[in-house]
């Protein structure tokens, strides 16, 4: 039996083309991994075995007929429950969408379908992506493959855990304030939040529309780029999507690194990553946006949430209360019965910050602060090609250890500013926490539209290091 452990996309592709493995066996290998590991990791919400195997057989027929196949053809992947894939259950990990079957596919899923990638399972997340640990899922928490007592991060925790546990070669996640990068860092995998608008949001359940980004979680920057190339681009169905003309990076690049006081700091100092020179190192305080970003974020995002989630009213789709005697009660009782605690909290907060008398003090002021943060980030990026900063201050925390909502919000402190500014950021595994041995992440942040530049840098760093090749062993 050939070794199919932790395959990269191009390695899997080569094996398919050379006949070392069939697409059917490749899919079955990953489905078996789910069967074996998911009872411990609990990443998967629904699995679509028959359809995945049928699609794999079609790829095998194509190969046996001597036809060429694309790089993603026959590659098994998973997607966060936020993504509609026609005919699949799409719950957003909420009870309000427990029986919701997607009537059409998200653009990102459709593009991957067209490229021949095979969706094998839909994976867990915080309910409506509200959270940083996947503990807010209305179904069950997900466990970190490196240490099952710890969270995988969130909100795309199911995606990061699936990739880390080899349940699929890559996954699709969403990132509103760090929800791709933070779980990627916690699970020792690579997570990419592209420039705002680079990937269409069509068919992906909305959280906060001016922040939401879609991107891959995978085991390398190289795989990330392959998936990004397949899913990005202007989409007439998303009027906020952007036709970025990605520039090739110039030869010699300069970075500034911001220290946060964890082990990543000691691995950076004046290091030269081949074409990337770390020209300056400063304490994170000097970036001057992190604390401000959290406050602005936790005003603006709940505001957008409270408006986006108005649609879950028990009328057109989703669950409806059995206990209402008039239409208003249908709304209030449906939302009261089927929304989880954090979703309620954010809807209430948003309704408050947008309500008469508080709009100027909260919402407008936070939008002004967003301008300041965006300008500040761009000022730094005028001087340096990229900002380097750890993805999180601490590694993955214990399940149940952050019961206080504010403590949970603070875990986003190093990631939210990229969403406020709309700039791209990739988190790559970079070093380990000394006391726990758990993985840490490093973000590479560029200007809006610099997606290819930061992917190139990430690839160069991964060529020279092997942090991304380390995997967590799951104790069965």
């Amino acid at each position, binding site marked *: 039996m050939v070794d199919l452990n932790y395959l990269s996309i191009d390695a899997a592709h080569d094996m398919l083309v050379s006949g070392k493995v069939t697409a059917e066996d490749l899919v079955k290998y990953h489905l078996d991994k789910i069967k074996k590991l998911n009872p411990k990791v609990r990443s998967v919400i629904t699995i679509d075995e028959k359809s995945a195997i049928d699609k794999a057989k079609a790829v095998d027929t194509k190969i046996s007929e001597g036809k060429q196949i694309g790089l993603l053809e026959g590659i098994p992947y998973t997607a966060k429950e936020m993504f509609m894939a026609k005919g699949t259950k799409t719950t957003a990990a909420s009870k309000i969408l427990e029986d919701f079957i997607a009537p059409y596919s998200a653009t990102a899923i459709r593009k991957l379908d067209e490229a021949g990638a095979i969706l094998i399972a839909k994976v867990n997340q915080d309910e409506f992506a509200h959270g940083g640990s996947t503990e807010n899922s209305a179904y069950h928490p997900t466990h970190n493959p490196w240490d099952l007592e710890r969270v995988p991060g969130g909100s795309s925790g199911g995606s990061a855990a699936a990739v880390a546990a080899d349940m699929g070669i890559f996954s699709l996640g969403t990132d509103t304030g760090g929800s791709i990068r933070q779980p990627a860092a916690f699970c020792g995998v690579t997570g990419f939040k592209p420039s705002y608008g680079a990937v269409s949001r069509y068919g992906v359940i909305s959280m906060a529309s001016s922040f939401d980004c879609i991107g891959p979680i995978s085991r390398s920057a190289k795989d990330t780029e392959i998936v990004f190339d397949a899913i990005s681009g202007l989409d007439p169905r998303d009027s906020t999507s952007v036709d970025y003309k990605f520039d090739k990076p110039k030869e010699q690049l300069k970075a500034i690194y911001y220290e946060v006081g964890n082990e990543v700091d000691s691995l950076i100092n004046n290091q030269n990553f081949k074409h990337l020179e770390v020209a300056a190192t400063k304490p994170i305080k000097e970036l001057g946006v992190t604390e401000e970003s959290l406050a602005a974020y936790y005003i603006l995002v709940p505001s957008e949430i409270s408006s986006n989630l108005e649609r879950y009213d028990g009328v*057109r789709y989703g669950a*409806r209360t059995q206990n209402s005697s008039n239409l208003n009660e249908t709304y209030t009782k449906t939302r009261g019965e089927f929304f989880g605690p954090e979703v309620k909290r954010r809807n209430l907060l948003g309704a*408050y910050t947008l309500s008469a008398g508080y709009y100027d003090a*909260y919402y407008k*002021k936070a*939008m002004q602060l*967003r*301008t300041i943060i965006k300008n500040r980030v761009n000022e730094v990026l005028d001087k340096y090609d990229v900002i380097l900063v750890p993805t999180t201050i601490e590694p993955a925390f214990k399940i149940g250890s952050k019961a206080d909502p504010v403590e949970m919000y603070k875990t986003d402190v190093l990631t939210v500013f990229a969403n406020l500014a709309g700039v791209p950021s990739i988190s790559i595994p970079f070093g380990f926490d000394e006391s726990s041995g758990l993985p840490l992440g490093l973000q590479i942040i560029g200007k*809006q539209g610099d997606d290819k530049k930061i992917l190139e840098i990430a690839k160069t760093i991964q060529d020279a290091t092997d942090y991304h090749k380390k995997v967590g062993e799951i104790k069965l």
Partner: protein
Amino acid sequence: MSKISISDIEKVANLARIEISQDRLDSICLEFNSILEFVDTIENADTGGIMPTSQVTGINGVSREDKVIKSQVTPEDLLALAPETQDGYIKVRKVL
């Protein structure tokens, strides 16, 4: 900013159309105040004369050719998602 009370929470819950059970009001009020205390740090930011940012791409008023694009879904597909329908309409409880 001022602390908010249980009656404020009830008012906001009504605006958000979310029924909150009486036994949860106290804890929600506590959490709400702790979150507000956390975000109230924006009071210190000097935002005088700064234009607000509501979106980050600068793209406004996207239009397309006025041409019919066939939808991927039929009205029947969408009606099938509704909790209750009758004669091709979505059925709801009485309004008043």
